[in-house]
């Protein structure tokens, strides 16, 4: 799925990623670890094609990539519903949308503007997007942060679901999660 060879990345001449080599096969779940500032978010951004001026080789066998960053990519001035309906990564049908919102307890908030949601609820909206999109590679940057217990469990299950469907997942988290097939430490 992914093959990274001799990846170098530096920020203002300060080397951040140095000679990184790894491989991810399909149906793998990778837990990306590292102290604050070790470059986890940067690596995910490079893999997803957001950052470009790296050195080295990155081979991706798909361009159907889902990325979730620290900034969630949601529109504050739109309602939860619009945020889901107008996401280009999936075509939400009424049913699946109902179901997904139900799972995350967002049903009562579907007509609220995103602006008025709590931190964790916003995260949940972007996780509904995760739930609804069918990609081959999922790059999730701290998907568990700000979520309550139930939310964390839900996401863990969803990640495993995706794995069973043949997708690969790389996620970062500072907690322990026993769902990962492998850990990658930066």
């Amino acid at each position, binding site marked *: 799925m992914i093959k990274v060879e001799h990846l170098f990345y530096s*920020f*203002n*001449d*300060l080397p951040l990623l140095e000679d990184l080599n790894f491989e991810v096969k399909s149906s793998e779940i990778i837990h990306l670890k590292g102290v604050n500032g070790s470059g986890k978010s940067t690596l995910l951004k490079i893999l997803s094609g957001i950052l470009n*001026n790296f050195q080295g080789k990155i081979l991706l066998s798909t361009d159907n990539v889902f990325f979730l960053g620290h900034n969630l990519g949601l529109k504050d001035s739109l309602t939860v519903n619009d945020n889901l309906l107008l996401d280009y990564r999936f075509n939400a049908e009424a049913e699946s949308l109902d179901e997904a919102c139900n799972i995350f307890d967002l049903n009562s908030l579907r007509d609220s503007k995103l602006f008025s949601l709590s931190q964790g609820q916003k995260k949940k909206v972007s996780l509904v997007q995760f739930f609804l999109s069918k990609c081959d590679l999922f790059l999730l940057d701290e998907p568990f942060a700000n979520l309550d217990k139930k939310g964390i469990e839900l996401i863990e299950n969803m990640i495993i679901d995706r794995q069973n469907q043949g997708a690969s997942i790389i996620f970062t988290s500072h907690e322990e999660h026993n769902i990962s097939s492998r850990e990658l430490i930066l």
Partner: protein
Amino acid sequence: MRQFFSQLISFPYFFKLAQLSFPYIFVISIFVILLGVSWGVFFSPSDATQGDVYRIIYIHVPAASVAQSIYYTMVVASITYLIWRIKMASVFMISMAPLGALFTFLALFTGAVWGQPTWGTWWVWDARLTSTLILLILYLAIISLFSSFDRRDSTDQAVSIIVLIGGINLPIIKLSVEWWNTLHQSASITLSGSSIDNEMLIPLLISILGFYIYVTAIGMRRMQIEIIKREITHNWVKTIFQEKR
């Protein structure tokens, strides 16, 4: 030749070259300027119509000329940077823009001082003056971009984009300002292209030459400073500072 260029765009080499040559170029420029200006001010005859006021020409025209030339060299640098990513080109742009602004201001200022006795007014909205003013604004705008980025590459690229677009646009601006001006015809006084006496022309040319050399010297110094700012973490800079001590 090719090797010379590739050396010139390497920071350490350029730094050393500039370090060695700066004193000479600087001294020469001062000498040439003094020669041109003093010749013009003390020895050339006074103008038939303007008297002695015209002598400000020995500052005004060189400043105006340098101000424009700097912009065009910056456009070349920006193209170089955008195509080949040569960092030296962005160092050049960032070091020269404030100099360009300075000389544009000098041209405006001396022009205004000159205009008062000859035209009886500080300023006319004639095509050349207006486009000089716009050039100054463009320089200031470019300078104001310097710190709006946190990443250096971004600053470099933003500056080169805006320099380039300005470069494409500058002739268009000039042309349109000229149309606008000819349509209005109200500025009764314009800079006339009157032929100048040889005795005035030679010191003027010397003075212009002096200004160009001076800008080269100061520009090199500024580029050195900019290079140090960028490469402060690199070893060759550290060794230079150690040698100094």
